[in-house]
């Protein structure tokens, strides 16, 4: 009986404790810098798109919310012709970010995407591209990859040796 009264008293005292609630729309919860929310397409240091249209993100997506079409620029760079994410399906799992070989897809600390019209949740490439390098500053896929594009032949990438003519090595 006494312990019941004591617990009632202790619960009563909670009236004067600090509230745990964030009054959300007015008072925002602090999000960590690497919080995984809305998906964005980052750019390389030169301002070009990082995405090379490899479809790995679309393959990794468990809810099939990513759709894209690869295209090739005259200089040999691949880029997505269109890149569309249906955020009414996206579950913010971050698998696309993990799958992306060029650090193009990154998840931002932003989750406030409520819309009155469902169609507005379908983001096109223009909506997804951000003017930032995201979590990997200084990374440029074509500078480190061995793929030849106009203005950069094979072997000219960073930390890459010129290709060896295997036939000239014959004994």
């Amino acid at each position, binding site marked *: 009986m006494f312990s019941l009264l004591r*617990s*009632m008293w202790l*619960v009563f005292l*909670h009236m004067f*404790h600090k*509230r*745990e609630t964030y009054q959300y729309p007015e008072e925002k919860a602090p999000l960590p810098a690497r919080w995984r929310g809305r998906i964005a397409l980052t750019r390389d240091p030169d301002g070009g798109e990082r995405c090379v249209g490899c479809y790995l993100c679309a393959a990794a997506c468990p809810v099939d919310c990513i759709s894209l079409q690869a295209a090739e620029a005259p200089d040999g760079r691949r880029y997505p012709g269109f890149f569309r994410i249906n955020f009414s399906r996206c579950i913010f799992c971050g698998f696309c970010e993990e799958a992306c070989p060029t650090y193009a897809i990154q998840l931002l600390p932003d989750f406030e995407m409520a819309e009155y019209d469902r169609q507005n949740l379908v983001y096109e490439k223009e909506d997804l591209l951000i003017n930032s390098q995201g979590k990997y500053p200084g990374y440029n896929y074509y500078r480190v990859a061995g793929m030849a594009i106009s203005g950069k032949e094979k072997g000219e990438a960073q930390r890459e040796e010129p290709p060896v003519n295997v036939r000239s090595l014959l004994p």
Partner: protein
Amino acid sequence: MEAHYWWIIGGVLFVLLNTAAGLIWLERRMLALWQDRYGPNRAGPFGILIVLADTLKLFFKEDWIPPFADKVVFVFAPAVVVASVLMAFAVVPFGPGIVVADMNIGILFFLAMSSLGVYSIVLGGWASNNKYALLGAMRGASQMISYEVFMGLALMGTVILSGTFNLGEIVEAQKGMWYIFPQLLGFVIFFIAGIAETHRLPFDIPEAESELVAGFHSEYSGMKFGMFFIGEYLGITLISSMIVTLYFGGWLGPAFLPGVIWFVIKTFVFIMVFILLRASMPRPRYDQLMEYGWKVLFPLSLLNLLGTAAIKLIIDK
């Protein structure tokens, strides 16, 4: 009847139904405060318009009657609880002269009406034709029947001291001393029985949402569920006002406030205690509840009755 009575009846109904609705907000707010939250605070000042929003929502819910239910009884049951509790309020003296029916058998009428509330639970659970509802109804019936026994017995202490069943006269008899002091044991027993009677936590065993879905009102939706809800809050108000009337001097209090205000203040204190109980107590097991009732409270209330009677006889001699 004189116009005077119509005003009292109308006023009592108006205040009670609004109190019951307001308690929805008050309870959510207080529970939140005791759990370090804010509770509903958006709609209107302090979020009090949540009551309006909740009621509107209930009205727009699908009013579904299960095809396997006993339709007449199913519709009838929720009305019983509200009607019987409102009837019981007829004898509660809210202030000097402010009482709907100044009956000489006030306490007996209150006991009878609060017992009628069991019908609502039993009929609602039975008519739902659902095993959880039936289990809840069975629990509710046995809980309320057994706790009514010593609820009545605990009340007899005040009846012995005041020598009347009339609630107004009982309040008048407390002018010298509130009955909480000579009848502390009776008060504790009545309070515990009152919690069980309104089947509130920690004695919400007929509902027991973690075991029985929602107990006797599992199948109810829309405003029929709302009636059970209102009935529960009216029950809290009834038990609180009965505690105040019988043990805390009813409308009596220092003269700078009118009697009705004192009554309302005291009643609200006990409503708060009811909510605090819900915030802090775990639910006992069903057999523990029965054991506690019959093996502890029942003998204690008999002892209380005997002791009070003996002391009264000795003093009167």
